[in-house]
């Protein structure tokens, strides 16, 4: 009696058989393989076989099927479509590619993309014999992180998967006012800003592109229509995330001050230049100080930055922001129980 074979073993064997055969195989060949040769009815064994093929296709396998009447009878791998082509990279580019990947995978890697990144790198290294990525290269000295906040990982994975498949997601979302509602969104892009992740997508119920902070989502992100087949939406041609999400360092929109000017004295001017030169206008003065011009800024986000330079900064404009900041500083002193 044939041995019972688990799904992983069955799919590995199926892949091995398809890769080994240059000319393709028919159902009769597969029906002799462990996992498809038990004494259950042929119909159920064939369904099992088709399910396994689907799983392999999701891993990147491209199959050519030939039909005889209504049934598929012959299966062949489309090698040109499903095998990783040789990449014409220079030695330096290979090292850069390796350094980039290792920077994110160092110390076991973290974040939502570490797992697919590792398998991608292993594939590149598997092609080492054909001039791809070397299997052994020097240790990288850079450590980068794709993770931002605990709890966001699973949501990010679900959103990324949905974006790849172009499927709607649904999730419970708590808005700024604290009201929770279920949202159905077509994911367009993911943005990481100020230590957190944001989803930019088309909100089906509101009929517009909206931004959602992942930290405000409650519970899991799920497929809105789990039984749907095929793509449910298209990302508009030419869509750029920045068009829907402010790239301002201290935020923009309702409640943000505009025309902000802050003077930093000579001791810390270079830090501001390191952070913002070429991004925002910086006007240096003869005494070594510098004035940072920001088109927009939320005061709370700005004050977090300014707090790193005790006594070295002064808000010049606009006047309401200056008053706001001074008021906040006084309030903080009062909260400590001391007189301003």
């Amino acid at each position, binding site marked *: 009696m044939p041995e019972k074979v688990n799904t992983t073993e069955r799919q590995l064997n199926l892949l091995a058989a398809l890769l080994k055969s240059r000319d393709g195989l028919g159902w009769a060949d597969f029906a002799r393989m462990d996992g498809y040769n038990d004494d259950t009815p042929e119909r159920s064994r064939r369904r099992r076989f088709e399910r396994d093929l689907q799983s392999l296709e999701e891993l990147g396998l491209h199959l050519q099927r030939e039909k005889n009447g209504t049934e598929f009878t012959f299966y062949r791998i489309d090698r040109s479509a499903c095998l990783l082509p040789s990449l014409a990279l220079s030695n330096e580019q290979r090292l850069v590619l390796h350094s980039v990947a290792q920077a994110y995978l160092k110390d076991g890697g973290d974040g939502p*993309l570490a797992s697919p990144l590792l398998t991608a790198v292993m594939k590149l290294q598997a092609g080492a014999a054909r001039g791809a990525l070397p299997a052994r290269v020097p240790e990288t000295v850079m450590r980068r992180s794709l993770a931002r906040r605990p709890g966001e990982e699973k949501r990010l994975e679900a959103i990324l998967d949905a974006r790849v498949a172009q499927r709607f997601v649904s999730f419970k979302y708590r808005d700024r006012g604290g009201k929770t509602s279920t949202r159905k969104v077509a994911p367009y892009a993911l943005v990481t800003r100020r230590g957190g992740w944001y989803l930019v997508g088309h909100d089906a119920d509101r009929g517009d592109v909206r931004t959602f902070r992942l930290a405000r989502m409650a519970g899991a992100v799920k497929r809105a229509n789990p039984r749907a087949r095929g793509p449910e939406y298209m990302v508009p041609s030419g869509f750029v995330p920045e068009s829907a999400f402010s*790239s301002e360092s201290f935020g923009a929109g309702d409640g943000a001050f505009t025309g902000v000017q802050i003077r930093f004295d000579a001791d810390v001017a270079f830090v501001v230049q390191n952070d913002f030169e070429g991004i925002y206008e910086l006007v240096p003065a003869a005494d070594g100080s510098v004035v940072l011009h920001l088109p927009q800024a939320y005061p709370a986000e700005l004050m977090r930055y300014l707090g790193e330079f005790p006594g070295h900064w002064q808000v010049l404009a606009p006047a309401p922001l200056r008053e706001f900041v001074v008021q906040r500083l006084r309030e903080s002193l009062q909260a400590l129980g001391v007189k301003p």
Partner: protein
Amino acid sequence: MNEVSRLVGLLQFMAANPGIRMSDAARATGRSPKQLMQDLDRLMMCGVPPYEPHDYVTFRIGGGADAPIEMQFAKHFAQPLTFTPQETLALTYALEHYRSSADKATTAQINAILETLRESLHGRAREALEGAGRAFAMPRRTDRLRELISTMNEACACRRVVEIDYYSAHRGRLGTRRVRPFQVIDAGGHFYLFAHCELAGETRHFRIDRIRAARLTDATFTDKPPRKRDAGRLAGMFEGKSKDLLVVRFSREVAQAITEEWTGAAGTTLTHAKDGSVTLTTPLFNQFWVIGFVSSFGAHAEILGPTWLRAELEKTLRQSLKAHA
């Protein structure tokens, strides 16, 4: 990750790298040597009809951690499957994210790699790649910061002692120090240089944007980075011990924002009171961010502990108010 994908990835890697040492294979495939052996054992069940001995994948291994491993009867796995869309997105994201803080030379290399991927990939991998540029938005970094990061990477790789002009928030002034750099770390939106500081006589994490200038010296070093528990005063930001416990009470008006920001943070508790306020308790590794963080909430935040931090906050607030007098 899908189990089949994980094992196929390993099989393809091993088949394409005959004779690779166990330690190298373990590192390259993100496994411990023990996990590697377990997975290799699992792969030995992989076979094709007619299931003669040479139809099963097998491996041969010498002794010791650095023993070479030879896969046998796995040649049909030697050419890897193309990237899945998720793998394409992950690779593209890593390349683009890295590029957002890379120097000009590295940026050019990354652009060339992305172009090669676009030209070479096909099918769903290519579709994902063509869409990937629009799938993420990257932070903006200045050329000055990119060059500093590049200099530090070079110093770490060549193990060269570096002289830096550094603004210490703790001392409140600029000073020069010689450091032995170990690693550049991107964490929480900032870049840090993890290095041994000759001035302090121990390791430190230096914020790279607070470096005014960096000069590579001719001196080299052979020290290895200290073990994690010895990793220096600020190391706790990444690993290690905190210097104190920060306790801040936030009013009802800002409680939701604090809950969103801090829920799930390591070692952190949030205690909600009946009046709607919330008290945050979290390990304090470095007090400098706290000043800006707490003062941005004005009357809505009060530091309950430690006491010395209340005094430091008061001093800073008075300095800032004086600058606006």
